[in-house]
Structures are given as C-alpha cells and as structure tokens.
C-alpha cells in the first residue's frame, strides 16, 4: 500500500558506494516518488523536478558530512519538503511584488486535463492551507507516513504533528464546505 502510493521504498545498499554512484542510484530508485510528492505539494511539474534535482545535488555536495549515509533518503525527502516551502514562499513574494504575475504557475494544462474536477477542488483547497498544515496532510495521507515518520521528515514533534493534522483536517473541511455551499 505504501510503496504503491509513494514509490518510496527503503534505502538500499547504495550508501556504501562512491558518492556520485550512490546518489545516482538513490535518484534512480526514488526520483519518481519524490517528484510526485513535490507535484502534490506544488501543483507544478517543472518546479517539482527542479526541487528534487536540487535536493539530490545538495545530498551529493554534503555526502561526506552525513553522519549516517543510510539515512540519505530521509535527508533528501526533508530537502524536497524544504525546497517546496522555498518555492511556495517565493511565489508569495512574487505575487505581492508584481501584480502582473497573477497567473501563477499552478497546475499545468496537462494536469488539469488528467485530474478530475473533484480532485482539483481538494487540491486547490489544500493549497489554501498554511504550508505546515498542507505538508502534514500530504505526508500523512499521501505518503501514509505515521506520526513519528512525519515528525522526523518535518523536524517537528509528534505532538505538533497530531495537533497540526487535526487543525488541517478541520480547516480543509471548512474550505470544501464553503466551496460546496
């Protein structure tokens, strides 16, 4: 169930290999899942690819400073989440500076064609949530991470995961309710 949904199997023996080879192997095994994760977060395929690319470049640059290379996947997943946050913050800044950029990248035409109206409503509602709430929903219900794994990925406590999840679900319910009424 989890592997099907996320494409993120546990890290393999790549950790012991040379950095370039290890990072490339890790990328080949996990890029699809991570790009999908970033697409869910950002709704924008090219930006998602860039975030994942940059996360792996960061992993490569920091390979020798990793205390435990077996945790490389966890490291790169956190980097992807951080990268998504940066993109979203940059979009907000651009929107406030230049009103001409009202046409935010959002979903591509292709994505619009492939995703149903119901799903797009839910995704649009999720994008109205604060970034932490959105992240916790994606990690918990898309990646099916448990509270401990979610807490580790977001570098927050389990208690915060629990309370943020609760608030996010309530907020999402309100937004979807408003859309339907």
């Amino acid at each position, binding site marked *: 169930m989890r592997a099907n*949904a996320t494409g993120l199997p546990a890290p393999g023996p790549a950790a012991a290999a040379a950095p370039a080879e290890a*990072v490339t192997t890790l990328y080949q095994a996990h890029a699809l899942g991570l790009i*999908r994760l970033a*697409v869910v977060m950002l709704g924008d395929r090219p930006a998602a690819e860039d975030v994942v690319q*940059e996360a792996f470049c960061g992993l490569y640059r920091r390979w*020798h400073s990793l205390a435990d290379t077996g945790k490389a996947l966890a490291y790169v997943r956190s980097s992807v989440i951080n990268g998504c946050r940066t993109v979203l913050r940059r979009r907000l800044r651009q929107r406030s500076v230049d009103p001409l950029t009202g046409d935010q990248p959002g979903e591509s035409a292709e994505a619009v064609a*492939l*995703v149903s109206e119901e799903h797009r409503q839910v995704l649009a509602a999720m994008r109205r949530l604060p970034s932490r709430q959105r992240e916790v929903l994606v990690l918990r219900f898309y990646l099916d991470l448990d509270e401990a794994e979610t807490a580790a990925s977001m570098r927050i406590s389990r208690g915060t995961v629990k309370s943020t999840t609760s608030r996010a679900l309530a907020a999402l319910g309100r937004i979807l309710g408003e859309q339907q009424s």
Partner: protein
Amino acid sequence: MNLIEDRIRAAARAAAETVAPDSVPSLELPAEHPRGYGWRQRWLVPAAAAAAVVIVIAVTAVTVGPATRTRAPAIAPAATAPGPMLPGPSLASYVSSGMIPPYFVAVAFTGTAAQSPAVAIVHDTVSGHALATIKPSIRGGTIVGVSAAGDDRTFVLDEQTWVKSKYPFPTAGYSGPHSFYLLRLSSAGRVSSLGRLRVTVPATQVLRAFALSPDGQRLALAVASKKGPARTNLEVVTLSTGSTRVWSAAGIFRSGAADSRGLSWTADGRELAFEWQANNVGEFPGVEARLLNLTSAGGDLLAASRRVIATNRQFKPSGSTFQVTDAENEPVVTPDGSAIVTNSVYFQVKTKDSGKAWNGRYGFAEYSTRTGKLIRILGYWTIKPAGYFFTQVLWSSPSGRVLIAVIPDGRMGVINGNEFTPLNMPPVPGVIMDIGLGAQAGAW
C-alpha cells in the same frame, strides 16, 4: 475512515500520477567535488565520473579554472514562474562549477557598429577580458560570424569581403564568397591553431546560417541561390573529407541577417534544429521550428525533418486582453535534444485602448521536442509600453535550464530561472539586434 482523508488520498494520488514513470528526467549532478567548497586546486572533471552521473555539459570534461569558495549555483526552482528577475550567482561560481563554459568568441566591429569591418575576439567569460584577437586573413576582409563546438575550445569563423554600405543607415550586407577558418584555443583561452577550411560558399549563393557540430567534425550550412525561386539547401560537410550531404526544399530558411546562427545541433550530432517558413503568404505566414534527422541520407528537407512548434505569432484571447506570442529569431535546440528554446515576447494588448500594446513581457520559452508543449520559461522582463526589443539565445546548457542570452536591454548574461547574472561586457548595441546580428555577440 474519514471522508476528507479519503478525498485527500484520492486527490493527491491523482495529481501524483500525472507524473508518468518513464518521464523522470536524468539527474544532473554538479561538476564539483563532493567534499565541499574549500577544495582549492585546479582540477579535472573525470570523464568516467561525468558519465556515471549523466554528463552535465560536454565542455565540463576539460579543465576549468581554479575552484573558488563560491557555492556552486543551483538550478533555480522557479523556472516556470514568471516574476521579477533576481540577481543570480557570480559568473565565477557558474564557470568554476562547470555550469557555463569559460571562454567565448564574439564578432566585434572595429568602428561604428555594422558600418565597419569586424574582427573576432576571444573573451574570458568571467571577466569579459579579451584574450586574443583574430583579424581577417584578407585585406579588406571582415569576420561575419562565429560558431562553437561543444568543447568550448573549437570554433569556426566565417570571413567575407567588407564593402562600405552605400546607405546612410547600418545594413548587414557583405560581399563575395564566404571562407571558413577553424580556430582552436588552448586551455588558457589562447589561440593554439587557426587554419582555413576547404569549405566555401560562392558569391552566387546566400549563406543563411552555419553551425559547427558539437564534436567539431562537421559544419552545417544553410544556403540559397541569390536568384530564382526561394529554395534552401541544408548542407552538412564532413571537415576531414569534404564529403557533403544535402537536404533541400522550396521555402524560406529563417534566420537573422548575414549568417546568424539559425542552425543548432543536438550534442549527439543526430539532429539539427532550424526555423522554416513554407511561404510568404498572408499576414502571419506559417513559421515553424523543425528538427532534421541527420541519420537520413539527404534529399527532401521537409520529409527528413519534423515540425516541433509553430513559431509565428499567436493570438490568444485572455479575458479582456489579447496575448501575442512572438517567438521568432533563431530558436535553438538544447544539446540533450529535449527542448526548443525560443526568444518569446508576450504583449498584453488592451482591446479598449485601441488595441495599443500595453504590457510587454519578455522571456525565453522552451517547448518539448517530444510533445511541442511549453515546458518552462526562463527570464521575465516587463516593459511598458510594449514594443519590439530583440533578444537572442546564445548558448544553452544541456537541458536548457541555464541559458546565456541577450536580454531586452541589450545586456548579455546568464539566465537561470528568474535569476540573471550579467556578463562583464558592454550591452549589445540596439542596431546590432535590430538588423539581426545579435547572434554574433558571442559563441560558447
């Protein structure tokens, strides 16, 4: 199970599944030692390692300058998010990380722009300093164009006779046959050899464009007869043997003036991009970017090539405004063959203001060679009121995510998403861009 949780799962998975498993791009690791930023040595990027991590750029498999403490630039994540331009990383960091080549060759006029003979100058990409000057070989000659191979050390120069224009305004007309010279640079950017090639274009023909292959072994030329119906020959000459393959079709090969670089190769040397106009009928005749399959034996140019995008103006209703996309002038194919890069102009035309151009948006649009769809926009400049400000792609990274280009105000620089780092070069004069000589501003 909570209904909202189920809806989140279903929606997220639907969004995720828009990413097909076979569409994941290759990883491009930086050409940088993974131990960090303090590694101070001249270093050679090992070819084997480069192959293992997917070659970032053909020219990184050669020595580059000393590593600095500067952080290697990242590929900007907001590459498809039009917005204000931000200052980019330093040129030194781009070059030391192997993201852009260290040298370029530009055509420089010896007097008034486009009204005097020209020489070729080898420049250092970081400082802009001139490292060498190549003068015409013949008295009264002028260098009219330059094209680079993929190693950033091999270039071809095009020479013609210079004729003073009889008009009071600048033109790009030169005279006589074209001669070509192969220039090789040392690792320090100095001239190591310069020899004449056994390739000429006679005075009875017009040279529309030329481009040296990435391996420096072949020269592609687009030529047309000065008289008779519009017909273009696309010739690919193997420099070592002189053997030539020719593709031909009735129509107009689109390029800037003189012999601007309207041709571009993929890094594997298997495809060549060009801009084609089938006829000159109507207000906006069909203009398209095409890819020629170079494994074909020659013959019909159109049969051996495929249309990737239409590059003529497109009017797109958008609320109370019209968007005009003008993607002309020498689109280039990215070395990995994944995209066509065009210099696009977006006009927001307010219909209630008598159709007067209101906001001009300028950027470089990239279209998938597989689907023809827009995949990213690099650079974003708004100019009010809109007008024609010519831009020019001069160099593309393998995937097209980093460009070197001339932007609307004439500056040359590195474009990485919404980041711009200007070269240490004076702006390209407007007249040079106006008459289509912008491509001569630099070849990497």
